[in-house]
Every structure is written in structure tokens, then in C-alpha cells.
């Protein structure tokens, strides 16, 4: 049994180890994708053969607050040389924060052959594995995507309001200071335009990085995750859960943990998050 399988996750196949990635660097059925917060980090060195997907330039609509559409996703996949049959393996900085965000966006288009490299960039670097500054070039592919399907894993504000009114569970993955309204943003991060502080009524506060071993960026074993989300917070795998943060990036990490590592069936990420809810007129807020 592999080390990842031994951790007891509901879907262990959605994670890969750094060893596995090192063994598949030249596997043509695999595309390794780095997604970081700092757009310059990839250029300073990355896993050999890895392409970059930038959350702002590649995943967001340049005009509207929304994600790329089907044509945009097809163009992205063509540019990075991915076919529908290929497996994409995401990794990145900040405990795979942005890697899970990219993973989540890819799932909106149904590219289910996707994995996260456990530990991300931090673990790969700590293990002294090879890095290169060479930008790989792959022949463009013809990728036919399905229409973006927001229904299963994405929540919008009206749905969140109905969710609150129905008394269903939400998880606020921001810092405790943001949750209580003491801060309108993460410490040392800018206030991205929220007029009110606090949290969506009924939301439980579990900061996203609670799921991570900070020394190497790996996910905690299932038993520890269950203790955090199920025993301490009372969430159940068959609950209908909405997660949120400030713009939906940190919460994509918790979405990944609940859905894949703990096997929750119905988890949606509210990407409007606090920058939308904290500005909406008339919606309920708790502090």
C-alpha cells in the first residue's frame, strides 16, 4: 500500500506523490501544471516539463467577474498541449492553494483526469528534486470541452442565501479575524473591496490551512481531517455544504479536502465569497 493510500482518503487517486511525478516526467499521457500566487515564481524554476496556468490570466474572464468559457478553456488546453485523454497534475506554491483553485476550475469543464501533487512546490523543492527555467513547448492539441457546468460544484449568491435560510452548513475558511469581522482581509493582504466585515450566518470557521502539515505542505491524514471537519465542526459526508473565503481561492482548497479526501458528496465553492457577500445590500451578516 502506498503512503498516500495508507492515509485513508475517500479518493486517494486524486493525489500523487512527488515520487510518482518524478517517475512520470516524460510520460506523454501526463501534463504537469504549476499554478502559483506569484506569477513570476514559475519563471524562476519549475518541475521539468511543467506548464504554467495562471489564475488571473488563464482562468478568469478578462472583463466580467467570471471564469473562462468553453471556448477559452479549449484554447487554454490547446495551448498547454492537453487532450481530453491526458491526466493533468497540478502543483504550486502556498500549500497548493492555487493548484486546487485551478483543479476546481478544470472540474467546471469536466476534466476529471486531474490530480494534485501532495506537498506542492514546497515539498518538491525541499526534497532537492530537479527544477528548470526552460519553458516547455508542446504541439497544440484539439480539445473539445463540454460547456462549463456550474451547478454541481459552484454556488452563486442567491443559492447561498437560500442555503442560509434553510439552515444548511457553510464553512468560512478565512482567518478567525476575517470571520469575526475584526479584519476585512487577510493579514498583510489588501482589502479587496468589502464594505462589511463578519461572516455568512451559520458558517463554521475552519481556516483552510488547517488541513495541511505546514512543514512540507502535505495534506493531513483522513483521520485528522475527519476530526477537524466532522468531529469538531459536526459536518457529515452527506451534508450539502458551501465553502467560501474572499474570492473563492482559499475555499477551493477546502472544497478539495471535503469532496475528495473526505468523500463529501455535495460540496460547492462560493467564489463570489466575501468580496461579494460583504458588499451585497440587505443580506444577513453575523459577527
Amino acid at each position, binding site marked *: 500500500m502506498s503512503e498516500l493510500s495508507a492515509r485513508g482518503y475517500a479518493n486517494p487517486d486524486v493525489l500523487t506523490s512527488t515520487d510518482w511525478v518524478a517517475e512520470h516526467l516524460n510520460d506523454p499521457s501526463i501534463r504537469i501544471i504549476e499554478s502559483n*500566487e*506569484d*506569477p*513570476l*515564481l*514559475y*519563471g*524562476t524554476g519549475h518541475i521539468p516539463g511543467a506548464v504554467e496556468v*495562471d*489564475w*488571473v*490570466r488563464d482562468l478568469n474572464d*478578462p472583463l466580467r467577474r467570471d471564469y473562462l468559457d468553453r471556448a477559452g478553456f479549449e484554447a487554454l488546453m490547446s495551448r498547454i498541449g492537453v487532450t481530453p485523454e491526458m491526466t493533468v497534475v497540478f502543483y504550486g*506554491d502556498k500549500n497548493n492553494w492555487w493548484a486546487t483553485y485551478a483543479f476546481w476550475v478544470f472540474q467546471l469543464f469536466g476534466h476529471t483526469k486531474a490530480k494534485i501533487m501532495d506537498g506542492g512546490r514546497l515539498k518538491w523543492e525541499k526534497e532537492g528534486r530537479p527544477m528548470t527555467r526552460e*519553458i516547455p513547448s508542446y504541439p497544440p492539441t484539439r480539445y473539445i470541452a463540454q460547456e462549463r457546468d456550474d451547478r454541481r460544484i459552484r454556488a452563486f449568491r442567491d443559492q447561498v442565501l437560500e442555503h442560509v435560510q434553510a439552515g444548511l452548513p457553510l464553512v468560512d475558511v478565512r482567518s478567525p479575524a476575517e470571520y469575526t469581522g475584526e479584519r476585512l482581509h*487577510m493579514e*498583510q*493582504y*489588501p*482589502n*479587496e473591496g468589502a464594505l462589511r466585515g463578519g461572516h455568512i450566518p451559520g458558517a463554521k470557521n475552519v481556516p483552510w490551512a488547517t488541513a495541511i502539515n505546514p512543514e512540507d505542505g502535505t495534506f493531513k491524514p483522513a483521520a485528522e481531517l475527519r476530526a477537524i471537519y466532522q468531529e469538531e465542526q459536526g459536518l457529515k459526508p452527506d451534508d450539502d455544504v458551501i465553502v467560501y473565503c474572499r474570492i473563492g481561492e482559499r475555499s477551493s482548497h477546502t472544497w478539495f479536502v471535503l469532496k475528495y479526501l473526505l468523500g463529501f458528496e455535495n460540496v460547492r465553492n462560493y467564489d463570489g465569497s466575501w468580496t461579494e457577500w460583504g458588499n451585497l445590500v440587505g443580506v444577513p451578516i453575523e459577527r
Partner: protein
Amino acid sequence: MTSLDGYPPSLEKILREFSQITDRYERAELLISYAGQFKGVPDEIASRPYPEEHRVPYCESEAYVWAVLQPDRTLKLYFAVENPQGVSAMAMAAILDRTLSGLPPERIAAVSPEIVLKIFGQDISMGKGQGLMGMVSMVQKIARQLSTVQPLQRGQYLAGGDYL
């Protein structure tokens, strides 16, 4: 490119360089090359733990700024970036030092944080953009403070109240 007129010449030159870039990897390469020129604040100017009043608000890379007024009433800028993966902050610090050190404080105080968008591109994320603009704003603020200060006999004054 009249929109770049009015900047200090060395900054204008760099802004023109970036204005001609359309490829994201080319822009990243140039920024990384500047980041490679970054030199942290020397111990004789500041040592850890760095004082909070020198910390750049909203910068997730934990950047700090100092300025020293020289006998000729120009400023020498110093930066620290505590996040070793804060490549963007290092690039910004190197560019600010390279283009603004050696200018009088009034000239430095007139440089707008908007240069971040000209250097990093309009599609920079809001969070990253505000953090980097915070660095320029901090430089502006210190330069304004020092614009009214006369150099000491020994020739140096540190923003934030520390004399050398």
C-alpha cells in the same frame, strides 16, 4: 509614448522597456532578471526584527522600506523582502532602487504607484497589484517625510526617526 514623459529618466527608460513587451514570458523573464539584482538592506541600515513602521502594508511578501538622506539631499533607498519566494516584490524593489535612488526626495515623492501596472501589466491580480503599489506608496511617504529634512552634519538620516 508621451504618457511616460515626466518620469525620472532612468525610470522612464525601464517603463518604455516594459511598454514594448506583449509576451507574458518575456515580461516574466525581464522581471525575474531584475529580481536577481535585488540586494537586501545591509545590517548597518537595519537588522531583524525589522520595525513595523518600515513594513509595507498589504504586501504578502513582507517587504520593508528604508531611505537615507545623503549629503547632496538625494535619497538612497533600501528594501527587505522576507518571503524568499516573493519574486515580484524583489523585482519591484530592485527597480525602485535602481531608478529612484540618487534622486531628491521631492522627485521620488512624485512617482505614482501606477507604475506597477506599467511594469507588471494591467492583468496583474488585485491583491498582487495592491501589495506592489503599497511598496511605491511607502517610498512616496518616506520621501515626502524627508523632503522637509535637512541632512545632518554626518550626512545621514533614516526615515522613521533613526539617525545614523
